[in-house]
């Protein structure tokens, strides 16, 4: 079963549109959703959450249509944006009182344990929090009704590596339950290297690929050489190429290239850069 399934999603604004976006997040996995700023990550996530109205296509969460079963679905998801969107005069204890009324499954003990773990003051107003504290509180709020699916829109952007690491550990703990899933949008590809099972790459409102992370690492390779050397690589093996500092670099299908060529293992960032800056 898929936690999220998107088929042919379309949504347009002046100067930007999502074009037939399709991908799925299998249950029990972490999907890294990557793309440069303005590529359409947040728009896609807002459509998934029905914060934006889709123009065409189908969005299913746990096999149910998000528009038809919105409230039932939202009982089982936790959402973290790139900031904490609650009135700044509130504090963490007051948010617990509110959430208790919203979720039948709200677990105050778990929530206060997370606050203690993250050293979040219970009575301090949100407006006095640092950015790291705001994000940690946002994550504690998203986890404390024990959701089955986390939808994370740039939750680690602007945070230092120590806090990012703490947050990623918490997500890994969440994934210890095999029925749990995460859609993790980020342009910090190193976070996704640590946590993601699959990578979906969006560029200019179109999905360029949605693939198992290991497949990306082991089926793709980076070739570095000069013009003569690259001409020896079969055309169909070259996915993208670009001019590098010392000649030509190409993202290639490893199995289609003769073993005499030495290839480097690509990172997600390398693959992203080839797709965005390279040419066919």
């Amino acid at each position, binding site marked *: 079963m898929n936690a999220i399934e998107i088929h042919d999603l379309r949504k347009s604004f002046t100067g930007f549109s999502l074009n037939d976006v399709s991908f799925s997040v299998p249950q029990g996995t972490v999907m890294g959703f990557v793309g440069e700023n303005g590529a359409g990550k947040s728009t896609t996530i807002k459509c998934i959450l029905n914060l934006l109205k889709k123009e065409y296509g189908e969005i299913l969460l746990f096999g149910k249509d998000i528009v038809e079963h919105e*409230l039932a679905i939202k009982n089982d998801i936790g959402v973290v944006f790139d900031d904490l969107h*609650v009135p*700044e*005069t509130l504090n963490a204890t007051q948010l617990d009182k509110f959430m208790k009324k919203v979720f039948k499954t709200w677990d105050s003990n778990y929530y206060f344990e997370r606050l203690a773990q993250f050293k979040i003051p219970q009575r301090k107003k949100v407006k006095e929090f640092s950015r790291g504290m705001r994000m940690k509180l946002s994550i504690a709020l998203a986890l404390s009704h024990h959701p089955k699916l986390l939808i994370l829109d740039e939750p680690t952007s602007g945070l230092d590596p120590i806090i990012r690491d703490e947050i990623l550990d918490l997500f890994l703990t969440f994934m210890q339950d095999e029925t749990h899933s995460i859609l993790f949008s980020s342009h910090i590809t190193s976070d996704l290297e640590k946590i993601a099972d699959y990578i979906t790459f969006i560029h200019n409102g179109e999905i360029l690929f949605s693939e198992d992370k290991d497949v990306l690492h082991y089926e793709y390779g980076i070739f570095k050489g000069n013009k003569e050397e690259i001409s020896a690589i079969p055309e169909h093996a070259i996915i993208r190429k670009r001019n590098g500092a010392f000649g030509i670099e190409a993202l290639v299908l490893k199995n289609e290239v003769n073993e005499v060529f030495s290839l480097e293992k690509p990172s997600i960032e390398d693959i992203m850069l080839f797709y965005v800056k390279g040419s066919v």
Partner: protein
Amino acid sequence: MTGLILKDLMTIKRQIKTQAFVLTFFLITSIFMQQSLILFTIIIFIVTFQTITALTYDEQSSWDKYANTLPISKGDIVLSKYILSILLMLFGLILALPIVFFIHRFNNWASAEFFLTFNLLVTLALCMLALLLPIYIKFGSIKGRMVLIAICFIPGFFSGLISKQLPDIHLVLINIKQYIFLAPFGGLFILWLSSLISTAIYKHKEF
């Protein structure tokens, strides 16, 4: 729904505390001047319009973007603001009425006159909320203010132009005086219609 009202009350708690100083000042002034009407008007309007403060806090924090990820219907999000405003008005009345009666122990203001004023003020507050809430929900607090000025200014301008053709307002008031006890119910009906409009507006919004 109760969660949303609770959240708004917690959000504006500090604001209400701040307003308590203003109310204390007017309370002292009214006791000395034996003028309860000003105090009554100020309490009703300051307390009731804290709903707008709650809406402004929501807007500043992009609360609606977050609230719509929770299992709360859009109808409940809108309706909670209307219920909050009625609750605040009741709170204002509970606060104001004993003070007003206390002041009038020392003068002989006719109770019929007070009843008329009370009805008119409550109705006016309900009608103002009925106008303000859809505007603020549609346009937000900054644009909303502009729209509100336009809405108040344009009819005012045109009624000024045709004022001679309009019936004398005093005569109208005297004629409807006997029905004035119905006015707050009319106000509540208008507020209910306003909530339907606001819900329709909110359901079309994107976040």
